[in-house]
């Protein structure tokens, strides 16, 4: 009987602690939180720190605020001049609106899948209109900028902000490498032949001039001698 007040005190302390734990939650710097009450979203917590929620009823879903990468696998794309290239893209996106994000795609994996599709279709459309040599020039930035704008526009309803889309790699497919090697080889051979022939030409010229000079000198000397 003497222990009962102690037990009550201990019990209240524990209940209080538990309650506090259930009502408070932290949002770390790299996260943002969405509070869902009984299945329906009620609010977002964008700034990090200590926040309050209703215990038991509210659940908190955390989303990353950081810039997330998307590195889809390589694709083969046909350009405007019918050349094929293998393209690796990369995308950097951020969850800008957790509410819309939760409503549309809910998880980051889903978001990635959808973004991959958007990027792929936009890429094919843009690149189908350009030539290879414009990709290999100053125009590359402009083309990539167009792709980014298109994808950003399509991703906004999902609550995603697409910060950057870039071409990681744009190369000719492996199968055509051999043809390129042959072309490079033949170009070099032509250059080498030209150089050697020119060297021969100079040599001939110098030799002939020298012999002419010699003959002239000798005949000049012979003339008065006769």
């Amino acid at each position, binding site marked *: 009987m003497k222990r009962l007040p102690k037990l009550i005190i201990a019990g209240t302390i524990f209940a209080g602690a538990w309650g506090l734990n259930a009502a408070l939650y*932290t949002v*770390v*710097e*790299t*996260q943002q939180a969405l509070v869902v009450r009984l299945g329906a979203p009620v609010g977002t917590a964008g700034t*990090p*720190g*200590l926040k309050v929620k209703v215990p038991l009823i509210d659940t908190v879903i*955390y989303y*990353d*605020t*950081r*810039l997330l*990468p998307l*590195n889809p696998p390589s694709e083969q794309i046909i350009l405007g001049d019918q050349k094929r290239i293998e393209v690796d893209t*990369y995308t*950097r996106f951020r969850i800008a609106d957790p509410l819309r994000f939760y409503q549309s795609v809910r998880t980051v994996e889903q978001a990635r899948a959808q973004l991959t599709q958007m990027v792929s279709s936009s890429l094919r459309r843009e690149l189908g209109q350009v030539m*290879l040599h414009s*990709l*290999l*020039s100053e125009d*590359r930035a402009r083309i990539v900028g167009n792709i980014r704008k298109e994808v950003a526009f399509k991703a906004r309803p999902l609550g995603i902000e697409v*910060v*950057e889309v*870039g*071409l*990681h790699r*744009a*190369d*000719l497919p*492996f199968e055509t490498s051999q043809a*390129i*090697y042959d072309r*490079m*080889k033949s170009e*070099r051979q032509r*250059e*080498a032949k*030209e*150089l*050697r022939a020119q*060297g*021969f030409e*100079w*040599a*001939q010229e*110098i*030799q002939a*001039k*020298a012999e002419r*000079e*010699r*003959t002239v*000198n*000798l005949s000049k*000397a*012979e003339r*008065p*001698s*006769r």
Partner: protein
Amino acid sequence: MGCGRYRGRRPDDQRLGLGPGSGAGSGLTVHRGGFRSGGKPDRGQGSQGGRVGGGRGCGRRGPRHPGLGGRGLGLIAGLAVLGWVLTGIYKVQPDEQGVVLRFGKWIDTTSPGLHYHLPYPIDMAIFPKVTQINQLQLGKAEGADQNGARQVSRNQMLTGDENLVEADCSVLWQVKDAGQFLFKAYDPEGMLKVAAESALREVIGRNPIQSALSDKRQQIAEQVKDALQHLLDTEEAGILVTQVQLQRIDPPSAVIDAFNDVQRARADQQRARNEAEAYANDIIPRARGEAGRITQEAEAYKTQILNLAEGDAKSFQSVYQSYTQSKDVTAWRLYLESMDAVLAKASKVIIDSSGKGVSGVLPYMPLAEGKDKPAAVPAPSAGGSR
């Protein structure tokens, strides 16, 4: 566990939400509410969270078993609280920055030294290494062995004139802004790698192959550095690129011999020219010398002929002088000299045709003419002696 009370929750990265790359890769260490090196050694236990009390309460079990007593309990509680409060002391190493989070919110950045923050779970500190220069290797890193053509094609890229080169480079970087590095980018090192490859390919794609191979390498390295820094700043990765070094730009190994042949052809060209010039330098002076010699010989011949002619003329003149003085003697003398000169070259036979000395001499028949000069024929002597 004994009787020490375990307070607080053990922190972990899941809770903090820090993804890959925030642990081992960048040399980041997380202060979990305990002590770094230095500090008071006997309060709190470092990274175990707030295990408190040191088990001192266990030692007190003994004859006073019926209860710890109010005072004992209070003492334990007081020590626990003190230990907990003291877990807030932390030290920042000279090559680090301290980033302090309160309930996950970033409130402060501290410089190297000893500092205090409110104990866990209120505050937490992270220590990114900001002065360390890290190196990222592109190209060569993925396996040094030569097998597999697929391997090789990973670092092949197109140049501005649709040729292929293989390029390796290394990027030296450091953390520019700890806050951005930790909180704004997911896996900043992975993003750096992708951005670096992308920048390299873009810059190589803008230059023709000859400038990439020979004269513009330094410029290309600068351009890659600028492009990469620009990309990283757009992504707010908090990384500063200190240097980009191009280690190797070569044509693909299948065509490298053809490229080397062009170098050899240049050398051959130069050599042909040099040889021709050497030849020219040889024969022209020789010809000059020859010309000089001919001229000299002609001069000499001219002088010689003139002198000889003068000499002949002089000797004729002196003979004429004596001729005019005594014609007959000089004429006879000239005749004798001429006969002498003529007969000296002929073979001679002497025949006595007067008939006085010898009788019945056969005239000489020249059987061995021209060979030598027989002095006398034996037949006439034999006829003579009879």
